[in-house]
């Protein structure tokens, strides 16, 4: 068989979304790859220019369908900086609560998809089962399981329902031993190590050069986590460790994500305890009504009551489950942002695909791409 290009995607079980990995193969050996994205481009940055600040949050949920909260958080920080608003502390804790649950849910989704990629069937169901508990929690306080629209510029939409924290603790208690089970299923298997060790290696230097972030860079031994490096929200008050591995391969990324879930559970326990003892407002009080007066009667939300903020720009960076996301919001006065720019971590991680895929075999593509954790929604935006 001579060399040939094959299209892995846009409809292919490996892609976990709608994108195309063009691969040049010599037999089973990968000679070259050329990722093609854009199949899911919805023009979120363009739509945002005609939206009120709070309406952009709706788009953020659609940005990444497994990590909606992280993107809501990213945008709200940038918008608050652009509009010079400070959210109340309880809102910040609620955001971190949502963020960290989202991190676990996203990683569980990744785990489910990843083990499927190497042919392991049962853990897929286990991952989805446990993720469902978190979605149930989301449903109880946002009313939605996937597209939450819960954050607001200046706070969050509503407080937690009564009894939520107990329920959250139950979920955390259930999750803690589950991670060990996952490890037994994967790390306990020789075939897993045969498939994943020394696979898709991307050393720390190359990660930096090619803009790769998130679990991929941490698996290469570089301690880089925006929650520690540039603490946003209330991460400064919370006690947790950065998950690290040093093998820079697929197994390393697995280990990093597993450890991150454990650390998220640790963070969540602190957050839930704090929320129990610190009642308070969840949205800034001096907001104009068009920006989210929380209990305005229907039909009288007061979109016409314009109060222009001074011009400003807001830049934010958030450690999303997939890596480092950034938002840049330009406020030229008025209700709409003048320009919104998002930086998606997966966008950069995919763009470096040539660096960590060439030289491996075609059967290695799914585990490698699985370990990158591709979320096409945020790549294409």
């Amino acid at each position, binding site marked *: 068989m001579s060399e040939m290009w094959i299209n892995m995607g846009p409809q292919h079980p*490996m892609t976990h979304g709608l994108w195309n990995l063009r691969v040049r193969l010599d037999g089973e050996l990968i000679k070259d790859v050329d990722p093609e994205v854009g199949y899911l481009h919805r023009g979120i940055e363009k739509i945002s220019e005609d939206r009120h600040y709070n309406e952009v949050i709706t788009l953020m949920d659609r940005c990444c369908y497994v990590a909606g909260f992280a993107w809501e958080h990213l945008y709200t920080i940038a918008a608050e900086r652009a509009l010079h608003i400070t959210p109340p502390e309880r809102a910040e804790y609620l955001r971190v609560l949502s963020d960290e649950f989202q991190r676990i849910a996203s990683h569980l989704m990744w785990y489910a998809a990843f083990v*499927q990629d190497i*042919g*392991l*069937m*049962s853990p897929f169901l286990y991952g989805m089962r446990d993720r469902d508990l978190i979605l149930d929690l989301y449903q109880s306080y946002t009313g939605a399981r996937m597209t939450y629209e819960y954050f607001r510029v200046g706070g969050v939409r509503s407080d937690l329902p009564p009894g939520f924290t107990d329920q959250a603790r139950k979920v955390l208690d259930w999750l803690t031993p589950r991670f060990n089970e996952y490890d037994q299923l994967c790390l306990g298997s020789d075939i897993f190590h045969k498939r994943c060790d020394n696979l898709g290696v991307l050393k720390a230097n190359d990660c930096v050069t090619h803009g790769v972030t998130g679990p991929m860079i941490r698996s290469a031994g570089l301690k880089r986590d925006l929650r520690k490096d540039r603490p946003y929200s209330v991460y400064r008050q919370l006690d947790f460790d950065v998950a690290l591995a040093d093998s820079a391969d697929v197994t390393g990324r697995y280990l990093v994500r597993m450890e991150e879930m454990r650390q998220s559970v640790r963070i969540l326990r602190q957050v839930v305890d704090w929320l129990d003892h610190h009642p308070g407002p969840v949205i800034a009080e001096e907001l104009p009504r068009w920006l989210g007066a929380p209990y305005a009667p229907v039909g009288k939300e007061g979109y016409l009551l314009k109060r222009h903020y001074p011009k400003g720009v807001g830049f934010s960076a958030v450690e999303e489950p997939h890596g480092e996301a950034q938002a840049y919001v330009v406020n030229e006065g008025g209700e709409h942002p003048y320009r919104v720019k998002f930086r998606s971590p997966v966008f950069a991680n995919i763009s470096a695909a040539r660096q960590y895929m060439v030289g491996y075999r075609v059967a290695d593509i799914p585990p490698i791409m699985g370990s990158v954790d591709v979320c096409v929604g945020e790549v294409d935006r």
Partner: protein
Amino acid sequence: MSTVTLYSVSYDIASLILHILGFIIPPANAALTNGNVITGLAVLVFGVILLAASMLNTILLIWWERKLLGRIMDRRGAMHVGYAGLLQNFADGFKLFRKTTVQPREADALGFFSGPTAYMVTSFLLFGILPISSGWNSGILPLSLLLALAIFSFAPLFIFVSAWSSNNKYSLMGGMRSAAQMIAYEVPLLLAVVAVVIVAGSFDLTTIVYEQQNYWFWGPLFVALIVFVAGMLAEMERIPFDLPEAEAELVEGWNTEYGGMLFAFFMLADYLRALVGSILVVLLFLGGWTMPSWVPSAATSFPLAGIFWFMVKTYIVFGLFVWVRASLPRVRTDQLLRVGWNRMIPLSLLSVFLAALLVTVKCVWPFGCIPSAGT
């Protein structure tokens, strides 16, 4: 009971049908009740019974796998059609039956259609030559084991034909893998069988079963059993050796382009081969339809007890295959080849050596003696 065999039943049915026909059409009576005509129809009836039995078992096997997988994965599996989803697979089958068969534009029609058909037919043939009980067999075939394994190893050829003719790069790679994988597992598989043949002294499956009356072969030939089961997993193309249809990278491998009834052919044939694989394990290592002497005779003397126990063993063996599928990741092609040549061939040679040793010493504690020791 030993007088009632599958063939005698078929003969009775055929003769009954022909006699009734002869009664209805008196002029043809003499011609219809001729012994040769009855024999001819009996063979046909025999085939129909086999087909029905194999299809029924295959579909039951799919149900069994779905339920077992479901339980392992913390869910229930099929539940809604029929009791505990027993009829779900019939519903699925009818759905596939009604679907349009889509032929890719550039596909080669001859290979595209004949591949699945041949795959199906050979798999069905396999079921026909295996003895299920002392009554359920197709007569004495002195080399039935060899025949079964020979037919078993046809499959990669048909897979390759259908993969190549569907004009799809994924299919082609799947077909290539299937052919490449064959050389990895076929040698150790056959060597493991040789170990059994050495001890039993025969290629006839019925004889092999009766040779296990003192002890089943899985004990003394444990190494051969391990190699055989691993080889069978590869032969059946099940996880962890389902590389030709690795859905993660090759979509569905060699059957990517197939849909409707042609896909159903592949699906049925796959499970038929899984059934035959489990049956072979039972026949070669688990005593076939016989039960050990310590089992109370009430449990082994009821009508069709042989078939019953045989099927119980078969489904348990298949359950083990399902368990493996639920808990192991898939290996890579080069890793499979390495395992095949570096691990399984030495092990199978060892098992042949052990078998020769067993035949020489004749009796092994704690299993006992070979019944035909010395022949």
